[in-house]
């Protein structure tokens, strides 16, 4: 513990390596011994690690707030990792405002979800395995956030992908779950390939993978823009798109709902999928130099936002609606990064973590209370039977729709304001974002009506409220969804400026911004109204609309047939090619050919040499004489060649 006495107050900045290490220790203990330990020990180990990490981060935050930002950035060098020629990569952890914010979210929300999981996964046989994987995920995620160079971040990046695979396929005996886990990992890998190319290009152009070094080199060349930097940014964007489920690499996220709901809340809503946004914010100094790449980021973000929102309009599985909502909100964050409003994007990341985790956990509570039912068409009337879940879910829905004064209002507004301000393209982005907000409000309230209000559509199931271990995190997240916006409103930009640059100042409270906010709230209210008209109790308008516009309805219901397209265009040809290569070329031609060659040469050689063993004494004698002649020549060659000036030295000469 570094304790440095100052004139007043105290500085407590923890050893940074403890923050990832504690969850890793939890993973080891639960992973190796968990099957034999009693359940309460597993729970204790599984909860202490994130709690302790969160405690360390919280104390660090308090220190920073009281002492001011001069104590940051804090770097910790834990030794050299790679030192080969001109490549030097160290184990270097860096704590600055950006990583502190992310860590608070990761460990805080993470801890709440760990608590929730105690109740949700209580009757699971693989309880210990679940907590081991969850702690493993926390380890890699904190590693990713704290990394001081791209390579260490990539380790965390891959690691969270692994943890995600393990947790999605937690019920591995279920084929759909195992397939979903594999799909997530493979699609992530495609993105990681882009990321790797970006890392190679970074190394080639900057000679170092350390964030500080790259930023310094860029600062020394103020005129360096475009060109190779655009390429690097596009490659990094591919990686971020894979991890954060943007077009066209989003297809794994809806399938990832096969995993347990707390997993969906933690990994696929609050933390792992935000790693892409974090990475772009972390490397903002590269993106700032490439307007072309920024435009691409903004386009990807906006397109994803509206695309996913349209699909979410008609989904019937409660978790799938939330999954598409996550993809859509992540699109907002990418849009924010694309218009250089990094602090706004991170702000939205924070508020999104609160209300999306809450939405998922509440959905989990509903599923748990209904004994596993996930279809919206069979829910209803739960507001009476599950009041805590209902009121917290309402808070979350209001937050995501962007109503004042809930959390989502401030962050979404900041992004839309920044988009509006950035040129003519910006106005288009603003319009797309606004329309998406309408759709978001609509489908969230649709979910709210179908799940909670009206009369129960499956009365035979006795819904019951969940236990306190599941409700307490809901309440805490509900409070954060209500108040979270006030934490960052007006302050986020200034707080994060040392890390992400001071580009946009949100909530400047000028007239344009107020004007735009009013439009946004009005749009959200419009969405609520439409949902009310279509889905309130007794209304058949939804079915009528679906049958009238049956073609668009079916298109949306089948998610634009994207999965089928990918399967036909990419997956099946790849499988066919690899099968061909493996069976015909590798197995048959190469291995078979090699075996044939080896055995053939042995047989052939044997057949040839066999003729030497003729049994004929005279031929033996002849070969003896030949051998003697050769030896003699060999021994006397230096003597003869010496006369011609050729000096060879062998045979004792």
């Amino acid at each position: 513990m570094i304790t440095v006495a100052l004139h007043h107050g105290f500085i407590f900045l923890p050893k940074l390596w403890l923050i990832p290490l504690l969850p890793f220790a939890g993973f080891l203990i639960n992973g190796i011994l968990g099957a034999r330990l009693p359940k309460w020990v597993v729970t204790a180990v599984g909860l202490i690690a994130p709690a302790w990490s969160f405690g360390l981060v919280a104390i660090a935050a308090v220190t920073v707030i009281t002492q001011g930002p001069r104590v940051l950035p804090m770097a910790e060098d834990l030794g050299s990792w790679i030192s080969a020629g001109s490549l030097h990569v160290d184990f270097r952890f860096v704590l600055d405002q950006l990583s502190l914010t992310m860590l608070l979210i990761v460990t805080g929300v993470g801890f709440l979800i760990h608590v929730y999981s105690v109740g949700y996964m209580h009757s699971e046989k693989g309880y210990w395995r679940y907590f081991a994987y969850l702690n493993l995920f926390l380890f890699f995620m904190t590693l990713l956030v704290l990394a001081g160079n791209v390579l260490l971040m990539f380790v965390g990046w891959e690691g969270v992908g692994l943890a995600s695979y393990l947790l999605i396929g937690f019920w591995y005996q279920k084929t759909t779950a195992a397939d979903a886990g594999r799909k997530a990992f493979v699609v992530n890998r495609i993105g990681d390939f882009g990321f790797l190319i970006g890392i190679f290009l970074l190394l080639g152009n900057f000679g170092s993978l350390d964030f500080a070094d790259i930023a310094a080199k860029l600062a020394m060349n103020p005129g360096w823009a475009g060109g190779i930097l655009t390429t690097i940014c596009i490659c990094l964007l591919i990686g971020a798109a894979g991890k954060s489920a943007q077009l066209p690499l989003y297809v794994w996220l809806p399938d990832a709902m096969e995993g347990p709901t707390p997993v969906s809340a933690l990994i696929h809503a609050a933390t792992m999928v935000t790693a892409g946004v974090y990475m772009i914010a972390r490397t903002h100094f590269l993106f700032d130099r490439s307007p072309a790449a920024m435009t691409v980021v903004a386009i990807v973000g906006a397109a994803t936002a509206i695309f996913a929102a349209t699909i979410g309009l008609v989904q019937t599985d409660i978790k799938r609606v939330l999954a598409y909502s996550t993809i859509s909100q992540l699109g907002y964050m990418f849009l924010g990064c694309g218009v250089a409003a990094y602090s706004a994007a991170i702000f939205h990341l924070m508020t999104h973590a609160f209300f999306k985790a809450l939405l998922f956990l509440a959905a989990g509570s509903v599923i748990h209370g209904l004994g596993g039912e996930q279809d919206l068409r069979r829910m209803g009337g739960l507001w009476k039977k599950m009041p805590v879940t209902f009121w917290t879910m309402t808070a979350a829905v209001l937050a995501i729709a962007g109503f004042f004064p809930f959390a989502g209002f401030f962050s979404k507004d900041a992004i839309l304001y920044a988009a509006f301000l950035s040129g003519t393209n910006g106005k288009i982005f603003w319009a797309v974002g606004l329309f998406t907000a309408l759709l978001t409000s609509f489908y969230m309230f649709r979910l709210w009506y179908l799940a909670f209000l009206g009369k129960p559509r499956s009365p035979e199931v006795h819904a019951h409220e969940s236990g306190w271990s599941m409700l307490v995190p809901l309440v805490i997240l509900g409070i954060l969804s209500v108040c979270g916006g006030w934490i960052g409103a007006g302050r986020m930009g200034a707080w994060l400026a040392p890390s992400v640059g001071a580009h946009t100042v949100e909530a400047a409270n000028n007239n344009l911004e107020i004007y735009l906010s009013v439009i946004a709230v009005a749009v959200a209210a419009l969405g609520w109204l439409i949902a009310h008209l279509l889905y309130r109790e007794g209304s058949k308008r939804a079915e009528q609309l679906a049958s009238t516009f049956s073609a668009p309805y079916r298109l949306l219901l089948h998610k634009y047939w994207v999965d089928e397209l990918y399967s036909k265009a990419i997956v099946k040809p790849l499988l066919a090619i690899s099968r061909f290569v493996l069976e015909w070329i590798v197995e048959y031609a190469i291995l078979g050919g090699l075996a044939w060659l080896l055995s053939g040469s042995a047989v052939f050689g044997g057949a040839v040499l066999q003729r030497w063993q003729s049994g004929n004494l005279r031929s033996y004698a002849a070969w003896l004489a030949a051998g003697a002649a050769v030896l003699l020549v060999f021994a006397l060659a230096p003597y003869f060649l010496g006369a011609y000036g050729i000096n060879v030295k062998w045979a004792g000469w």
Partner: protein
Amino acid sequence: MHLILFFVFGGLCLAGAVNLLLQSHPINSALSLVVVMSSLAVLYLMLGAEFLAAAQIIVYAGAIMVLFVFVVMLLNAGREERTMGSRAAKVVGFPAVAVVLAVIATTILKAQGLGTASLSDPITSTEDLSRVLFHELLLPFEVTSVLILIAILGAVALARSSDGERRASK
């Protein structure tokens, strides 16, 4: 004098060797070999090795060649018959022999400082020979006697085994 002796007996050596190759009946070859041995004994004498000359006559010409003749007689070896021959012997063997001869001859002819031999050179006395033999090389000497013993045993065992079985089975 020395020259004449050398030419006569050297010529006899060569003639005997060539005759050995040309004769088809093994007994003729054996007798040619006796001629070679004897001529070599004279050559040894000319080179001052009197003990060796005597040993050559006694051991080689007198014992080994007699043994050969005995075996020829015992086995009733006749003229050589035409057999299928060996292509390898002709194709590989003769060039090899030619190469060997060429290499050795060239080495000998190119060597410097070989000197000459003459009849007036000192003769190696048996005393000198035996002094080295029984003082420094005593162990090899004793080992050769063991060698001869083994050879005798081997020869006896090889040459009589089938005879013994035939007698035993009768």
